[in-house]
């Protein structure tokens, strides 16, 4: 029994497993950064949608409807690739000479000097930005709807107190908006958490990639077969991990909603 325990303890703390545990930071970072960016893009999109200037309004609604009309994976893959190419194109217009252009045989980049190598941190940031862009479109709609749910009387009262338009917006409108936006934003957050499982598609060695590597049949010449195909066990762990994250998020958002709703009589809380 103690032998067994010792085996499991050393198995679960070997170098590869420690790397796996460490790779949770990528997922957590992408979720938090993506979530924050989604709220920022959502606020920006909702402001655009509320604008009195027609072209801005059009930009806001086109952004929210186009991004939501295509699968999130598509945009998630497209944005980092397109951004990388755009940067390389810009570098190429600066550094490439006719000689280097002629020397390049591959289709892309235009010349070898223009190649921009992306490591894990860069991809992680790009992935977070694209999560923010995709789910910002969802948040745009949520925040846009919430802005319109704030009772008109509250805004009129604020104006009657002599507040300027900016003061009304920042001190009353946006503060009261959160009560109505939080249920929707909680949904968006759940979507972001689930979308973080896609990080491995951008060559980030995240929890999914490591689960696949660790679970694959493991043969060491010194020991023999350590274990056969254990991938399903690792994926089961991830499955449970995500369910726990969802559970914790639900609880956290419930507490947040209670706190945001203090002193506000509203049916949005019930």
């Amino acid at each position: 029994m103690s032998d067994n325990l010792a085996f499991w303890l050393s198995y679960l703390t070997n170098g590869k497993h420690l790397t796996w545990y460490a790779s949770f930071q990528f997922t957590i970072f992408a979720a938090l950064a993506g979530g924050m960016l989604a709220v920022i893009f959502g606020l920006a999109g909702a402001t655009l949608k509320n604008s009195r200037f027609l072209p801005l309004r059009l930009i806001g609604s086109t952004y929210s409807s186009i991004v939501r009309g295509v699968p999130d994976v598509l945009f998630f893959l497209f944005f980092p690739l397109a951004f990388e190419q755009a940067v390389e194109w810009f570098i190429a217009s600066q550094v490439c000479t006719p000689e280097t252009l002629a020397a390049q045989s591959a289709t892309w980049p235009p010349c070898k000097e223009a190649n921009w190598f992306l490591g894990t941190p860069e991809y992680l940031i790009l992935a977070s930005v694209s999560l923010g862009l995709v789910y910002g479109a969802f948040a745009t709609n949520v925040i846009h709807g919430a802005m319109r749910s704030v009772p008109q009387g509250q805004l009129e009262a604020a104006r009657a107190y002599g507040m300027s338009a900016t003061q009304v917006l920042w001190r009353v409108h946006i503060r009261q908006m959160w009560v109505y936006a939080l249920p929707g934003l909680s949904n968006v957050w759940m979507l972001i958490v689930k979308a973080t499982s896609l990080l491995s598609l951008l060559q980030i060695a995240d929890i999914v990639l490591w689960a696949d590597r660790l679970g694959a049949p493991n043969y060491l010449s010194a020991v023999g077969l350590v274990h056969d195909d254990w991938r399903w066990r690792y994926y089961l762990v991830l499955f449970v991990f995500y369910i726990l994250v969802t559970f914790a998020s639900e609880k956290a958002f419930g507490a947040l909603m209670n706190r945001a709703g203090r002193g506000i009589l509203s049916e949005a809380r019930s």
Partner: protein
Amino acid sequence: MTWFIEELALFAPAIVFNIYFAVASIPLGFVAAVFLALGKDSANPLISRLSRGFIYAFRGSPLFIQFFMIYSLTLSFNISLWKPLGLSWFVLHPLFIGPLVLTLNTAAYTAEIFYGALRAVPRGEVEAARAYGMSRRQQFRQVVWPNLIRLAWPAYTNEVVFLFHATAIVYFALPVIGLQKDVMITAKELFERDYNAFLHFSVAALYFLAVSLVIFFLFGLVYKRLMRHMPAAPRMRFMPKWIR
């Protein structure tokens, strides 16, 4: 212009796979969802707990992980079960596993929609049906179900569009066999060939957008038929909710 038609033609066989995954999983998921929703509402604590747990687990975890988990689980039974039965060519095929996982996933999401609609069925109508002496089966068939499906239809349309979008990740999790590639894999391979991200991904997006519009149109027709007793049938908006 011809290059654009050629590009569209490259994706045409690929979209068939996405449509296949959606069409194969939607009817089964629909039926399973009805039972799951009734199960969640059941007075029997065991049935209720089990349905709740299933719905929570499959709504609370990413589809991508579900694909990997179920595929590796079936793979681990290969030597002990599928191979002796001579079934491995079938059970391990992406065209079987894909719809299987999608069915489980959409069943959970749809069950939550149906459960919400089930709670929203007017109590008075059910009581009236009871007062008429209808049996449980009759009550469900004549009163609850017609109400439920009408209440749930707009949200269900939304879910079907999301399911269709979810078919984009099937082949990122399952092996691509020969020429059986869906739209995303086609776009990715074309991109790796000539690095034209804007063209290939936009065309893929166009295909998804087009099929989503068709889904909205068809489901809108069904909704109109469901609502034909109303004086002015409420129009189905192009984008009802979009949150899954």
